[in-house]
């Protein structure tokens, strides 16, 4: 029987019963949210540039559900109507923990993470590609990248924390304006204006550094 598309019971009721160790509720919960965990693990490993196979995904997937059942981790969920988002974060973090523990691989630092995101073409549109120097920068590209990441930081230093989040989610994490607006509960226009202002500031700073070939 396919429970995945069922809206009943509600996620609130389902979680409440899973915490009480109701096995029927657990089966429905797994049917419904297994794909969220699967997506989040794959997404995190891909974006962080880990060299993984299906066996790794299987192990991490099992680890996540063991922690939910055996450690009653579901009791930590505060907003039970948004369990998919919470589960994706838990699964993503479990993926990093697994690679740290089993493969002795630490998560990448910010610079290599962003390189990986853009190398894999997962950066959405209107993102860092817009402000990078031309792709054929050759051996000097690495130095250019270092400069650019420093400049991104300096360009957004004067912004408020929430505005910094907006700019970084777009320029460095590849999120689209509309998604950022939805996530942070802001008007899309405000998001676009903040990003445009930061990009303009960044372009000025890049020009001062002698980097002019911006798109």
């Amino acid at each position, binding site marked *: 029987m396919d429970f995945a598309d069922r809206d009943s019971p509600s996620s609130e009721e389902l979680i409440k019963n899973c915490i009480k160790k109701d096995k029927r509720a657990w089966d429905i919960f797994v049917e419904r949210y297994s794909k969220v965990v699967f997506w989040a693990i794959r997404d995190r490993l891909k974006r962080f540039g880990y060299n993984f196979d299906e066996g790794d995904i299987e192990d991490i997937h099992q680890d996540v559900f063991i922690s939910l059942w055996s450690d009653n981790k579901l009791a930590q969920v505060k907003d039970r109507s948004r369990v998919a988002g919470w589960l994706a974060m838990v699964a993503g973090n479990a993926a990093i923990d697994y690679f740290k*523990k089993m493969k002795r691989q630490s998560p990448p630092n910010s610079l290599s993470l962003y390189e990986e995101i853009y190398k894999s073409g997962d950066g959405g549109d209107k993102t860092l590609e817009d402000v990078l120097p031309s792709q054929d920068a050759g051996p000097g590209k690495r130095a250019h990248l270092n400069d650019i990441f420093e400049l991104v930081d300096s360009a957004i230093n004067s912004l408020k924390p929430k505005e910094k*989040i907006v700019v970084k989610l777009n320029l460095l994490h590849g999120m689209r304006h509309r998604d950022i607006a939805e996530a942070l509960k802001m008007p899309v226009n405000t998001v676009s204006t903040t990003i445009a202002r930061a990009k303009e500031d960044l372009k000025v700073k890049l020009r001062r550094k002698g980097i002019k070939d911006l798109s």
Partner: protein
Amino acid sequence: MKEDMAKLEQVKAVGCPDEATLTAYLSGALKEEQARAVEEHAATCHLCLENIRAGHLSDKLYGEKALPESSDGLTRKAKGVAKMKSNRVIQRNLWLVAAISAFSLSFTVPKYFAQFLVAALILGLKWVSESEGIRTLIVSMDAKRRHEQGKEEAPKWRR
């Protein structure tokens, strides 16, 4: 330069808000002061920003029913986490109770002392083999062990 950035990120990573707090932030359920604290941290933490991105996108994709299906094997194994634990307890207890009963009977019925003792030994061995011999159990126990070790050495950046 790269090492400096890595060190910087490590320092920044200490004291990350947990997943529940980030989810509450995304749903607008935090008090203004708490939300501000999350924003001040996340503005300088690429891992929290990745969590914010993953949290929002997965909620959205799940709502749109746009997530790819996981394999049946993965789902079955995850369901088995609950069954495995209770089945294991029943099975282990069953063989153990039988072994203890046979051992007790060997003293209460002296005529069949040796037979009951052998039966207790066989049932005891069965208890040991059943509790350790099932492949899925080993896999699950191994996963659990790894999970528990991971908890002991929980990375600071996640806490």
